[in-house]
C-alpha cells in the first residue's frame, strides 16, 4: 500500500501512531513491509490457503463473533441437501459440467422453509428469473454477471430455512467448517511457504483485534484481484471479516486499493461491458426482450434492489428524456445488448481474428500495461482504425513502427493497415471533474490551468464527438439512428465554452418532476417522472449544491468527517453500518459505537448516516409475502441482499463455486496439495496463437514470476517514464531476485538478465536483494522473480515490457488475468531481432508444449483435448504477419 498508494498509506501511518498493529503479507518486502510491525513473505497466488487457514482457525476454535454471525450472516441458512462440496468431489462443487466447463448452481440454493410455499432452489420462480440455473447460468457467466452485483447481491428465490444453533449438517456454518478443515497451518507452510509460527502470529493478532471492543481491516490491491481465483481470494477475506464481525463497523471492512484514480468511479458509472450505471446489469440479447423481462427476478425481492425498476426507468429518462415514455418502454430498445463475453482480452482476440475493426484507447496503454503485450499489439495491428487519447505518444500508438514485433520481423510496418488517430488529452489538473475513490467517495477537482494546444478533456472530446455524429445524422429517418438523435445532449457550457462537468454530475444525481435536483435514491419513481443517470450517486447534488466539492478539513469535524466530499450511497461513510449495533439496536461497545436505535425517537441515529430504513425498529419482523424494503427485518443489516444477510456461502452469482477454494495458478511449479483438481476448473484461457501457456511442473520454467508496481512510476508508465524527475528515480527496467536464486543461476547484481516464458523473453537489470525471499514450500525452495512492469520501448529510458511475458488466463467472474506465472531467468541480454523468436521457440519445444496444460474453459467453448496454440502441426511456430 505504501508502494502503490503512498497518499492513502498516510492513514495507516496515522493508525500505527495511535497503536494499531500493521501486518503485511506479500511475496516481496516492500515499502509497506518496512513500516509494518511484521512482514509475512508468501508464495504468489497461494492467498486462499493462507486466508482459508485463518477461517479454519476461527471456526475450529470458536473464535468467531457468534452473536454477529448468527443474526447478520447466512451462517444459519440451510442449503439444498443435494449440495456437494469440494471435500466430496476432489476440488469440484456439485453442478460442474465438464462439457461446458460451467457450474449449474441449482444445488447451491437455500433449502425452503418448512411449511412455506417456497420452491426448492432448482426451480426459479419464473422463466426469466435472473439466470440462477442451467442455460441461463451459462449465459450469465459468459457475460460476467457476478461482476454486476456491485451494489447488492444477486437475487435469491426465497429466504432460507434456518438453524440458529448452527448445528444442522447442511447449514452454511457447518458446510464452511468442513470445507476449510483441510486449510491447516501445516498446509499453509506447504503451500504458501509461511511457517506455522508466523501464521499463528497473524491469527492471534487478528482475533485479538476483533470482537465487540475492537475491529480489524483488510486492504488489498491487485495482489488479490489479478489471479484466476481473484474474486474468491477477496471472498475468503470477506468470510473471515464476517466471522470476526468486522464488516459494517468503524475500523473494519475490506478496502480495495484501486489501480488508478477513479477506478471505483469507472465501475460505478461504468466503463465495463457488462454494466449499466449503478451496477444495473447490461441487458443480454437473448434474455431481455423488454424492460419487464430485464427486471423480472430482480424486482420486488427483499431489500433495496427490489426497487430496481425505479433506478432503471430513471436512467432511461436521464438518457432519452422526453423521448422515453411508458408507451415505448422508456426507450428500453435503445440500449445495446450483449451477446456473450465482450471483455477486454476477448475483444483483443476478436481484433486478431478481424471481428473487431475499431478501437478507442482512453488513457490506457495495453501494449505495455495489459497482459501479453504481443497479443495486444497483434490485435491493434489488425484494426481498421484506432483512436488513442493520451498525454504522451504511448507504445499503443507507435507499435506499428517501433514495437518489439517490428524488431523480430513478426510484424512489418508496410503491412499494418491500422489508421491511428492520436488525440492529445488534458491532464487531471487541466480539467474539472470528480474522482471516486475506494471508499466510494466522490471528490471534486477544479481546473487549475487550461490544457496546452489541442489537448482537451475526455468529457469535452466525447461531447464534441456526440455533437458531430448527431450533426451527420440530422434528418435521418433510419430507426437505427434514433438512440443517438434522441439522446439528451443539451449540456450547458462554462465560461470558456466547454461542457460544464458539474452539469454532468447533476445529471447523474437526477432531477424530480419539478426539474430540481433530487436528494436521495428513495425519491426515484418508476413512472418516468424522475430522471437519474446513476442511482447510487443520487444526492451528490442535493439542494443544487455540488456536495463532492465540500472540503472542510477533518480537524474541523468529527471522526466521520461527513463534510469532506460525498460518499455513495446517501453520504454514508461505512456501508451496512446497521451491523455496528447489536441485534437489539444498542452499540456492540461504547468504544466502537457508530449507529444505534434511539427507542424514544423511534429512529436510527449515530455518527454516520444510518444505512438502514430510518424508522425500522430492531424487533420488526416482516409479514409473509412482503416485497422490497418492506421485507427487511429489523435485524437485517445487509439491505441490498435479497435476504438481508451477508453471505458466507454464495448460492448464486459466482461462476466458480459458493465457497473459495485454492487452486494453483494456471502456470505453477507445484501440484495442488489440497485437491486432485490442479487449477481453477472454470477459469478462462484466451485461445490464441500468441497466448501459449507454460506447462505445469516444468523444469524449463522452474521459477514463479509476479509483476508489480513501484512508487516512482505510474502503471504503464506514460505519465512517469516520460518525465525526467520521475524517470531518474527508477531509471531502468529491472527485476528482483533472492540471493539464493542469483547464486543458482549465476546472476550478478546490477547486470543484465533475460527472463523467459512461452510468450517471449525480455531483458532487464537484476537487483539481488533479501527483499525477495526464497520460500520453503514443502520439501523444496520456491524462487520468485519480481517484475516491476512500468517500462516499454518509448519514453526517456526505453526497455522491455514485463507484461510481454504474461499469459492470459482469467478469473471466470470478472475476466481479470493472472499476474503470476512461471518463467526461466538467465544471465545476459536476450537475443535481438528474429533470433529472439527462435530463442523462445526453443524454450517452448524443450518444455514440450504439445502437452501444455489448458484450463477447462476456452472463451466459453468446450475443450476436447489439450491445445497448443503456439505450435502448428509440424511443431514449428509460424509468426503471424511474418514472411509467408
Amino acid at each position, binding site marked *: 500500500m505504501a508502494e502503490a498508494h503512498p497518499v492513502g498509506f498516510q492513514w495507516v501511518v496515522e493508525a500505527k501512531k495511535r497503536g494499531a498493529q500493521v501486518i503485511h503479507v506479500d511475496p516481496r518486502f516492500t515499502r509497506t513491509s518496512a513500516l509494518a510491525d511484521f512482514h509475512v513473505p508468501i508464495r504468489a497466488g497461494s492467498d486462499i490457503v493462507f486466508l482459508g487457514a485463518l477461517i479454519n482457525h476461527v471456526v475450529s476454535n470458536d473464535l468467531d463473533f457468534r452473536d454477529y454471525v448468527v443474526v447478520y450472516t447466512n451462517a444459519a441458512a440451510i442449503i439444498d441437501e443435494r449440495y456437494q462440496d469440494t471435500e466430496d468431489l476432489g476440488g469440484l462443487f456439485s453442478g460442474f459440467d465438464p462439457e461446458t466447463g460451467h457450474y449449474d448452481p441449482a444445488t447451491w440454493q437455500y433449502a425452503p422453509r418448512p411449511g412455506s410455499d417456497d420452491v426448492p432452489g432448482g426451480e426459479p420462480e419464473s422463466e426469466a428469473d435472473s439466470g440462477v440455473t442451467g442455460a441461463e447460468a451459462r449465459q450469465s457467466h459468459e457475460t460476467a454477471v457476478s461482476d454486476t452485483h456491485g451494489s447488492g447481491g444477486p437475487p435469491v428465490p426465497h429466504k432460507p430455512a434456518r438453524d440458529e444453533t448452527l448445528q444442522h449438517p447442511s447449514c452454511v456454518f457447518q458446510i464452511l467448517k468442513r470445507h476449510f478443515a483441510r486449510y491447516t497451518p501445516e498446509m499453509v507452510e506447504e503451500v504458501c511457504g509461511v511457517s506455522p509460527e*508466523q501464521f499463528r502470529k497473524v491469527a492471534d493478532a487478528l482475533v485479538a483485534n476483533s470482537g465487540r471492543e475492537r475491529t480489524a481491516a483488510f486492504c488489498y490491491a491487485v495482489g488479490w484481484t489479478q489471479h484466476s481465483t481473484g474474486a474468491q481470494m477477496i471472498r475468503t477475506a470477506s468470510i473471515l471479516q464476517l466471522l470476526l464481525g468486522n464488516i459494517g463497523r468503524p475500523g473494519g471492512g475490506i478496502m480495495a486499493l484501486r489501480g488508478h484514480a477513479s477506478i471505483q468511479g469507472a465501475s460505478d458509472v461504468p466503463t465495463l461491458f457488462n454494466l449499466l450505471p449503478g451496477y444495473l446489469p447490461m441487458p443480454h440479447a437473448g434474455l431481455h426482450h423488454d424492460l419487464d423481462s430485464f427486471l423480472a427476478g430482480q424486482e420486488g425481492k427483499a431489500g433495496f434492489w427490489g426497487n430496481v425498476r425505479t433506478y432503471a426507468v430513471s436512467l432511461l429518462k436521464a438518457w432519452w428524456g422526453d423521448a422515453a415514455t411508458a408507451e415505448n418502454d422508456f426507450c428500453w430498445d435503445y440500449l445495446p445488448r450483449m451477446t456473450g463475453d465482450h471483455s477486454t482480452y476477448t475483444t483483443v482476440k476478436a481484433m486478431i481474428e478481424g471481428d473487431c475493426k475499431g478501437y478507442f484507447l482512453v488513457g490506457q496503454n495495453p501494449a505495455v500495461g495489459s497482459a501479453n503485450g504481443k497479443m495486444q499489439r497483434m490485435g491493434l495491428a489488425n484494426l481498421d482504425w484506432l483512436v488513442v487519447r493520451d498525454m504522451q505518444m504511448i507504445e499503443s500508438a507507435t507499435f506499428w513502427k517501433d514495437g518489439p514485433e517490428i524488431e523480430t520481423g513478426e510484424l512489418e510496418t508496410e503491412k499494418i493497415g491500422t489508421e491511428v488517430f492520436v488525440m492529445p488529452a488534458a491532464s487531471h489538473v487541466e480539467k474539472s471533474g470528480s474522482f471516486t475513490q475506494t471508499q466510494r467517495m466522490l471528490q471534486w477537482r477544479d481546473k487549475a490551468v487550461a490544457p496546452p494546444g489541442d489537448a482537451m478533456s475526455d468529457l469535452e472530446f466525447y461531447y464534441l464527438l456526440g455533437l458531430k455524429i448527431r450533426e451527420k445524422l440530422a434528418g435521418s429517418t433510419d430507426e437505427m439512428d434514433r438512440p443517438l438523435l434522441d439522446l439528451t445532449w443539451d449540456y450547458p457550457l462554462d465560461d470558456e465554452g466547454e461542457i460544464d462537468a458539474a452539469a454532468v454530475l447533476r445529471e447523474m444525481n437526477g432531477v424530480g418532476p419539478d426539474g430540481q435536483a433530487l436528494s436521495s435514491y428513495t425519491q426515484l419513481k418508476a413512472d418516468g417522472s424522475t430522471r437519474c443517470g446513476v442511482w447510487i450517486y443520487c444526492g451528490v447534488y442535493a439542494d443544487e449544491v455540488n456536495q463532492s466539492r465540500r472540503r472542510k478539513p477533518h480537524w474541523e469535524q468529527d471522526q466521520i468527517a461527513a463534510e469532506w466530499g460525498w460518499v455513495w450511497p446517501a453520504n454514508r461513510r461505512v456501508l451496512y453500518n446497521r451491523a455496528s449495533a447489536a441485534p437489539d439496536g444498542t452499540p456492540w461497545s461504547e468504544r466502537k459505537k457508530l449507529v444505534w436505535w434511539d427507542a424514544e425517537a423511534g429512529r436510527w441515529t449515530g455518527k454516520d448516516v444510518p444505512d438502514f430504513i430510518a424508522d425500522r425498529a430492531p424487533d420488526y419482523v416482516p409479514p409473509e409475502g412482503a416485497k422490497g424494503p418492506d421485507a427487511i427485518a429489523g435485524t437485517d443489516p445487509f439491505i441490498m441482499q435479497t435476504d438481508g444477510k451477508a453471505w458466507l456461502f454464495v448460492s448464486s452469482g459466482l461462476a466458480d463455486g459458493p465457497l473459495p477454494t485454492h487452486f494453483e495458478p494456471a502456470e505453477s511449479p507445484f501440484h495442488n496439495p489440497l485437491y486432485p483438481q490442479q487449477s481453477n476448473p472454470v477459469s478462462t484461457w484466451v485461445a490464441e496463437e500468441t497466448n501459449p501457456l507454460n506447462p505445469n511442473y516444468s523444469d524449463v520454467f522452474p521459477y514463479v514470476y509476479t509483476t508489480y508496481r513501484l512508487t516512482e512510476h505510474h502503471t504503464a508508465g506514460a505519465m512517469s517514464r516520460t518525465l525526467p524527475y520521475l524517470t531518474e528515480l527508477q531509471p531502468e527496467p529491472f527485476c528482483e531476485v533472492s540471493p539464493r536464486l542469483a547464486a543458482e543461476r549465476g546472476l550478478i547484481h546490477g547486470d543484465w538478465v533475460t527472463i523467459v516464458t512461452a510468450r517471449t523473453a525480455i531483458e532487464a537489470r537484476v537487483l539481488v536483494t533479501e527483499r525477495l525471499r526464497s520460500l520453503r514450500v514443502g520439501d523444496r525452495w520456491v524462487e520468485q522473480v519480481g517484475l516491476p512492469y512500468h517500462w516499454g520501448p518509448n519514453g526517456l529510458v526505453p526497455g522491455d515490457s514485463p507484461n510481454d511475458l504474461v499469459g492470459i488466463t482469467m478469473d471466470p467472474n470478472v475476466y481479470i488475468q493472472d499476474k503470476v506465472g512461471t518463467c526461466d531467468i538467465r544471465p545476459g541480454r536476450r537475443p535481438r531481432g528474429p533470433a529472439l523468436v527462435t530463442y523462445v521457440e526453443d524454450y517452448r519445444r524443450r518444455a514440450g508444449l504439445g502437452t501444455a496444460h489448458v484450463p477447462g474453459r476456452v472463451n466459453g467453448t468446450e475443450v476436447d483435448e489439450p491445445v497448443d496454440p503456439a505450435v502448428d502441426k509440424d511443431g514449428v511456430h509460424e509468426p503471424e504477419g511474418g514472411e509467408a
Partner: protein
Amino acid sequence: MTFTPESLFGRLDDVQADAGYDDEHPPRMGFFTDTSICIGCKACEVACKEWNMVPDDGFVLSGMSYDNTQSLNANTWRHVAFIEQPVDVPVPEGSGPRPAAAGTDLGMPTVGVPQGLPQINDQEAPSGDGGVRWLMSSDVCKHCTHAGCLDNCPTGALFRTEFGTVVVQPDICNGCGYCVPSCPYGVIDVREGDGRAWKCTMCYDRLKVDETPMCAKACPTQSIQFGELTELRERAQARVEELHDQGVEVARLYGADPEDGVGGDGAFFLLLDEPEVYGLPPDPVVTTRDLGSIWKHVGAAAVGLAALGAASFLGGRR
C-alpha cells in the same frame, strides 16, 4: 551585528539577531524529519525539483537499493536514502521498526547509502524471519546554526535569512567553491556546466509568503514536518519518548542539540539507528570552529613576530 565567539561555535539561541536582524525578525524556521514514518515515496525529491526548477540528476540505475539519485548535491536538494540490510535477529513482536543490525559498519561518514548492495547469505532461515530491514530517510541541508558554507563564502552569496535559514544567491555566487569543503555534511555542491553552488533554500520564496516548503507540503505521512524550530524540537522530543514507550529503543534525535558541533541544525532528524548507518557524520563540527582561536593564534604570532622583529632591530642597535 557584533562578532562574538558564539558567532562561530557553541550555543546560539538567536541566530538571526547574531546575523544582524532586529528584534522584529520572524522565528527561526526548520524541518523535523521523522524517518520512522518515512515510506520512501520520494515525493519530497520531486516536489523540490518541480518548485525550485532543479535539473534532473541523470538516469543511472545505481544498484543501491531503490536509491538512484544517490546523494544530496547541486541537483538533488532532498534525497531519500534507502538502507537495505540483512537482519539475522528475529523481530520482537510489536516492536515496530526493526532493531539495529549487529556489526554495523561504522566507516567514514559519507553522503548516501553506506551499504548499497545487500550481502548474499544462504537464506537457510525459514520464512517470516524478518530477514531484511529497509530504512528510509529523507536527507536535506541542515541549515546549521553555525554554517561553515556561509562563514567561508567570500562573496556574500551565502547569507542567513530572517527565518534563520542559509541560502545561496545565484546572482552573486562566483563559483569559487570554498563552501563545498566547508560543509561538515557534504551537502552544498557546485553544479556541473553551471559552475555555481546550489543547495536547499528551505523554499525561501515560499517562506516569504507564509507557505510551507514543497517537500514538507508533498510528504504524505508527515515524515517531513516544517515549523518553528523551538516547537519542532519539543514535538520531536515527544515523538522519541512515544517511540521509546512503544519499545523502539533505537529511536534518537540527530541535529537537535543546540550544544553540538554546529550549534544545532535547523533541519534535524529522528533516526532509528546510528547516524553513520544513514550516511550522516556522527559528530559534525563546523569547519570554522577554530577560526576564533586561529585568529587569536595568528594575532599572537603576529605580535610575537613583531616583537621579535623589534627585538632583533633593537638588539641590532646595540
